[in-house]
């Protein structure tokens, strides 16, 4: 079964015709000032369709963030290429919004000023900036906290603010690095539902990094499973669940899928642990 899955991965999946992001034989080596180089991802090829919700799943330390940072244009590419809409990625840009696990809000700016930041870089009229900022603050449910500083917000609220800040500039692609990983279970579940609602209302290409199998299966249309370091794409699984079904996560089909993918991930997680020891 594995090889059939891999074949499809190589062909870029069903979305190939609609491809927006093409990652071609990408590797990344960290070269710390002290210590030896670390090959974090190795020979990754992956195609992501326009408006697709893709989860990037793998044990911690396997290179998920590295791959996402490469997509963000934050790291130099040495081997391989990434193209977005046919153009080579050569640095960060507002076409690719990013949400980090630890929110990365500007702590010296209020909620409103954080959300306004990207809008101010877009040379919109001031009134329009304010209107858009308010729209997205309302969208994520932070009305009434416009003048709060991040240090005054709970984790969930901080991440809502970070999501609003990124969505406000309307990027075509949304890169999310374990965005709910630092939240408690209840908040995480709530945020997952809200993210899906937002995505349904205005679909964007989403690449969602997680090490949580259930989260990946619940959110994504496709799950790319990565191997332990150096990260490679081990398998790609298509999903076709009706997310409007409130009992979805308890259905047999869903549970079976989680189990199936968990089997794939578990072997890698064990390898990752062994690699650390």
């Amino acid at each position, binding site marked *: 079964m594995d090889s059939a899955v891999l074949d499809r991965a190589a062909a870029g999946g069903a979305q190939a015709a609609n491809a927006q992001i093409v990652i071609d034989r990408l590797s990344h080596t960290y070269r710390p000032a002290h210590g030896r180089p670390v090959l974090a991802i190795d020979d990754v090829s992956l195609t992501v369709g326009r408006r697709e919700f893709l989860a990037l799943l793998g044990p911690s330390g396997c290179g998920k963030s590295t791959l996402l*940072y490469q997509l*963000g*244009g*934050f790291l130099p590419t040495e081997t391989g290429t990434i193209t977005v809409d046919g153009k080579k990625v050569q*640095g*960060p*840009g*507002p076409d*690719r*919004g*990013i949400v*980090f696990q*630890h929110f*990365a809000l*500007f*702590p*010296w*700016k209020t909620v409103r000023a954080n959300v306004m*930041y*990207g809008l101010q*870089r*877009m040379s919109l009229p001031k009134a329009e900036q304010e209107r858009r900022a308010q729209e997205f603050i309302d969208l994520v449910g932070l009305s009434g906290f416009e003048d709060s*500083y991040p*240090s005054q917000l709970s984790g969930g609220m901080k991440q809502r603010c970070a999501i609003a*800040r*990124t969505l406000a*500039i309307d990027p075509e692609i949304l890169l999310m690095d374990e965005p709910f990983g630092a939240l408690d279970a209840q908040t995480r579940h709530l945020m997952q539902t809200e993210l899906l609602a937002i995505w349904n209302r205005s679909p964007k290409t989403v690449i969602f990094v997680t090490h949580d199998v259930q989260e990946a299966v619940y959110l994504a249309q496709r799950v790319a499973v990565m191997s332990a370091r150096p990260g490679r794409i081990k398998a790609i699984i298509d999903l076709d669940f009706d997310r409007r079904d409130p009992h979805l996560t308890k259905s047999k089909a869903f549970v079976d899928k989680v189990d199936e993918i968990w089997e794939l991930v578990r072997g890698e997680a064990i390898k990752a642990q062994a690699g650390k020891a």
Partner: protein
Amino acid sequence: MRSGPAFAAGLFRYLPIVFLLLLWHMASTFHLVSTAVLPPLSSVLSSGYDLVSTAEFWDNTGSSMYRGGMGLLLAIVIGGALGIAMAWWKPIRYVSSPLVEIFYPLPKSALIPITALWLGFGDASKILLIFLGCMLPVTIGAFNGARGAEQTLIWSARSLGASRWRTLLDVVVPSALPELLNGARTALALSFILLVSSEMIVARKGLGYLIGFLGDGGNYDAMFAVVLVVAALGFFADRVYLAFARRVLRWRE
């Protein structure tokens, strides 16, 4: 509404100072120390009172504050900018860090004769001295703060459309601010030391000059009064600075 208790709390906090002044007073009233060593507090206060009504005193105070203020301002602005630049651009770091390392432990009072030789006995030599002598703590604070700027904040700004230059201003500078302001507080204290000692040695004006002048003339009551004035100025400058820094960093609360 809260000024009553706050005032009382403040008074309580500075009780040791009141105690010290009381001790001073008793030392001279009970002849525990010779008045040649420590003039009585009452005569110091009364000659201080006479002094503050002279134009000469205010002239000297004004020129000291001008020198200290200008030197410190330059130290904070240029020192802070240098520290941030060192953190952001490698070439600047490579050129500057050996210089910083060499000059940091140098006793800055050694620069007093040098700046006087270059710029004479007036304001310019004091401003240069204070600038050079106070800038490194600010530079080092700014450098460490800027180096500690979170990578994800920088990346966030970049992906929200900020240029590298904007990111420097909008992310790196505010990240550097807490430690920069800490360094500036050290610089403030240093500036008083350098100001007074340089004025005592190479000046014809200023509070330090006045201390030396009054001491040489045997007018010890007035000399002690000026020392008290300098101490009070230093204390208030530090309080005002702390209030300012707290306001700038209010987002941290």
